[in-house]
């Protein structure tokens, strides 16, 4: 089974070479048969990759330590779920997951792409084949998960304890679905550049892919943030860590792409810019993939340990980013620009959005890569952290968030700011009221807190106003309004939900940062501590044994106002024998939208333990908002109106206008 998987992977590589060359030649020469090869080859390539991945996963599930990769990252005593998730909890396996998703998306294009012009489809599949071939070759030559050991060791080295968590089951697959989803947008862009023309329906074909990728990336980032929040035990939800920035950059660029693609789809404007954004977004995804797993960041060290891998990664990055940008430079001038619009219009607002988002992306990119470049050139080590991003990223986001509610209310081509402002009066009043209440009545309220809460309320109310206005609130009878509301296109709901989610996330961030409180103290069993109106009693440390670890679990009882216990929080320090590593399991209790967060420090000799306790008001909104954003994307995706119909070539083969002249 293992060797079958290995063989399937090699075969998939061979097919990806065919996929990248034959349809391309077919499209250049106009040969239908060569172009037709793309579809079946892509689908077969996906089936083989899936077989290969299944073989590796089953080796993990069966603790087959004759596979070096399994031996390095698994242990026979691990619970089954972590055995399986361990498949992608390491560099080699995660690369295999990456190509699995890549070939899956390629197969989707092949199967559902019948409405694409033949040459465009052939070129898109060829570009997907190029990406696939590069990754297959990378896996086979430098990161092969199927290398065998003979004789097989009896016991594995265990999965990194930090990764033995449900988060590993969800976070990387979501993130990769996001990263790789953008590869389809990239392939469409490069295909358009190869052909030298952008079909009118290009934006419509790209739109669902952008939405899918953006949706999964949003989920992946949110999940990653929550995972870091509860697993690392530091109580933070975002650290501006290079690895986090790596996924955030494609998200920012992808958000810009989502908006510019709307303009392109509706108004055929911003064509060239959208192509460029698609290329940039996927380039950042590639960078992100390698930053996380393979340490381009810690490149100095990674290259020393495995020069072949590092050089290969650099080659892939240079080839795809440099190659596509060069192609863009060569061909962009020959592409026709699209529709016209006034500066103040929906299009104008979206251009402004793009401007802010791309600048923000550049800021994050600089903050992430500058320390690296500096280290590589001068050897000096600096760390660029939250202060840098607060000073650069923050000021860019403020005006962007402030204009978000205006966008959906402006008309296409020529908008009326005054009219839009009048419609937003209620939302504005609500935001001001929220600011005043925060600033004047809530303890710990600062200017920043008031501003943040006001902005969040402004976003939420603005999103709701958009829906109300479009249903005709104020001008028609309630019954009519309800009917109109139900009849609104789903993409309108999608926009409103996504903007609403943004507001919720912002509210969560502001709430946690400004109104949270924190205590660090030493507690003995029986002692109580009070934080922001919640009383906790420390019951003691209890040793326990898990399947592949031992732990000291500290139990705390939440004491209500009446003196009775109404709930328990427990936090633990785990020790994993196989890796000789300790982890901290934080204790979290959700109360409404807020959370009480508890993490253990060092133990004293007398049964006392250092306890770090946080009160995090509204913190769940951070991730809840991301879920709402995902729902918005899903809603937008479900908008049938914007699907592309295949030209009815059989019913009316030659419509008057298209007959060759």
């Amino acid at each position, binding site marked *: 089974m293992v060797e*079958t998987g290995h063989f399937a992977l090699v075969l998939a590589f*061979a*097919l990806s070479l065919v996929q990248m060359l034959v349809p391309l030649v077919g499209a250049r020469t106009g040969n239908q*048969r060569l172009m*037709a090869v793309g579809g079946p080859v892509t689908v077969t390539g996906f089936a083989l990759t899936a077989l290969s991945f299944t073989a590796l996963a089953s080796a993990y599930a069966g603790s087959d330590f*004759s596979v070096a990769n399994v031996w390095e990252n698994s242990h026979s005593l691990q619970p089954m779920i972590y055995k399986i998730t361990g498949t992608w909890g390491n560099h080699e396996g995660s690369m295999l997951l990456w190509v699995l998703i890549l070939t899956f998306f390629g197969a989707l294009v092949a199967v559902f792409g019948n409405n694409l012009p033949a040459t465009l489809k052939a070129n898109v599949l060829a570009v997907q084949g190029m990406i696939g071939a590069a990754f297959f070759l990378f896996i086979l030559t430098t990161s092969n998960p199927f290398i065998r050991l003979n004789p*097989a060791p009896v016991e594995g080295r265990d999965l990194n304890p930090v990764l033995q968590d449900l988060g590993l089951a969800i976070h990387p697959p979501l993130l990769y679905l996001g990263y790789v989803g953008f590869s389809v947008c990239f392939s469409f862009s490069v295909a358009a550049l190869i052909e030298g023309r952008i079909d009118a329906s290009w934006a419509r074909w790209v739109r669902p892919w952008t939405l899918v990728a953006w949706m999964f990336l949003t989920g992946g980032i949110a999940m990653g943030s929550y995972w870091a929040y509860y697993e690392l035990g530091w109580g933070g939800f975002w650290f501006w860590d290079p690895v986090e920035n790596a996924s955030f950059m494609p998200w920012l660029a992808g958000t810009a792409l989502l908006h510019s693609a709307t303009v392109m789809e509706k108004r055929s404007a911003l064509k060239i810019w959208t192509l460029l954004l698609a290329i940039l977004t996927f380039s950042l995804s590639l960078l992100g993939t390698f930053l996380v797993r393979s340490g381009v960041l810690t490149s100095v060290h990674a290259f020393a340990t495995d020069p072949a891998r590092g050089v290969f990664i650099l080659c892939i990055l240079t080839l795809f980013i440099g190659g596509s940008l060069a192609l863009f430079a060569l061909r962009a001038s020959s592409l026709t620009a699209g529709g016209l619009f006034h500066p103040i219009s929906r299009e104008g607002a979206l251009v402004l959005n793009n401007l802010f988002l791309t600048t923000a992306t550049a800021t994050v990119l600089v903050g992430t890569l500058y320390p690296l470049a500096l280290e590589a050139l001068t050897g000096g080590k600096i760390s660029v952290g939250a202060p840098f991003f607060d000073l650069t990223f923050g000021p860019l986001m403020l005006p962007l968030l402030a204009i978000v509610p205006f966008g959906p209310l402006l008309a296409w081509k020529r908008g009326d700011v005054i009219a839009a402002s009048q419609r937003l009066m209620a939302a504005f009043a609500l935001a001001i009221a929220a600011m005043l209440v925060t600033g004047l009545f809530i303890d710990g309220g600062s200017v920043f807190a008031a501003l943040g809460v006001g902005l969040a309320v402004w976003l939420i109310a603005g999103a709701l106003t958009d829906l109300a206005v479009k249903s005709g609130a104020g001008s028609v009878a309630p019954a009519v309004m309800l009917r109109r509301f139900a009849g609104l296109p789903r993409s309108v709901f999608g926009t409103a939900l996504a903007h609403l989610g943004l507001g919720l996330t912002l509210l969560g961030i502001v709430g946690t940062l400004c109104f949270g409180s924190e205590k660090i103290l030493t507690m003995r069993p029986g002692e109580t501590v009070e934080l922001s109106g919640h009383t906790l009693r420390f019951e003691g440390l209890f040793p326990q044994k898990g399947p592949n670890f031992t732990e000291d679990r500290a139990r705390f009882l939440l004491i209500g106002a009446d003196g009775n216990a109404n709930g328990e929080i427990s936090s633990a320090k785990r020790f994993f024998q196989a890796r000789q590593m300790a982890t901290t399991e934080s204790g979290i209790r959700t109360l409404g939208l807020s959370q009480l967060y508890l993490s253990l420090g060092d133990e004293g000799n007398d049964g006392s333990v250092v306890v770090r306790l946080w009160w995090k008001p509204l913190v769940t909104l951070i991730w809840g908002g991301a879920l709402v954003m995902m729902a918005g994307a899903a809603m937008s995706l479900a908008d049938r109106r914007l699907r592309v119909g295949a030209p009815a070539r059989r019913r009316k083969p030659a*419509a008057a206008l298209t007959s060759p002249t």
Partner: protein
Amino acid sequence: MLFWVIAAILTLGASLAVLLPLTGGMKGASAPGDHDLEVYRDQLSELDRDVARGLIQPGEAEEARAEIGRRILRLGAAERPASASASSSRGIRLVASLAVLAVPLLSWGLYGVLGSPDLPSQPLAERLAKNPADSSVDELVARAEAHLAANPSDGKGWDVLAPIYLRLQRFPDAITAYRNAIRLDGDSAVRQAGLGEAIASAAGGIVSADAQNAFEAALKLDPANAKANFYLAVGLAQEGRKDEAVAAWQKMLGQLPLDSPWRSAVQQALAEAGPPAVAASGPDAQQMEAAQQMSPQDRQAMIETMVAGLDDKLKQNPRDEEGWMRLIRSYAVLGKPDQAREALGRAVAAFGADSEQAKKFTAFAASLGVTATE
């Protein structure tokens, strides 16, 4: 064999995926313009809906309609001539045949380099299920571990596993196993002595206080336990109380039955104790044997050469914790306190005065009667 059949079927499937479209019939092609026209029509109807919803002013909508109309007109004009000869020229036939050939050649060639086709899968369950007689010791241990993971209160299991761990030099596991056996099946001299040996071995042969306690517990249950007696004497020697150690060993020789396996160990220890002692780690068996056949002077010379060799090795590679402890002990045992002190100084310097290791060295040396020079 099965693998090659599967591989052949997979290759066949992949080749067919390339071959079939190349030989298939030509579908009626649609000109790219058809797609564009479809979109422009859609845009026109969408414009009407937007006007109805008030998303665009009627004047602008008129303009937009004109824009789309112009695009439709341009579409007709830019229509490309029917694509170049679809007939298969020689070049295209070449590409096609290359593609079909490339799949099997490339995959079998590459797999031949990378793969290990003869190696079957070995899931853990399968390895554990096979006949115990065919299993390696490691596998038997793994099987016992799996059994104990399921039944952690099987004292007999721990009792069986503990000495095996000891022999496999998995000392921490041996300690746990002995402790579990003692906890579940009660004290016995053999178990306590084994625990002591495991603790001592885990510490690189040093009989620590913990180990000493275990040996003493064993002697309480069985005063004649050879292992406990032997190691307690080793501990005495390590503390520098060589005379007492020699006395203990000599007493053992008097008591041990003639066929006891411990006799040779005790004799060896005695031979080394006059003056050198302890062989927990150091010279290999061959050297030991050679040493036994030498005259006392030669033996002394050989031991000194070996110690000097160790000293040299540590000069080149000073981060060898166990090596330093052996060196300090050797000098102490050879009756060269100055050199022992000097070795301690170098050991501490090698790891830094504040390091864990430095503390360990100092404590260890103190137990041998060597104190650091200040």
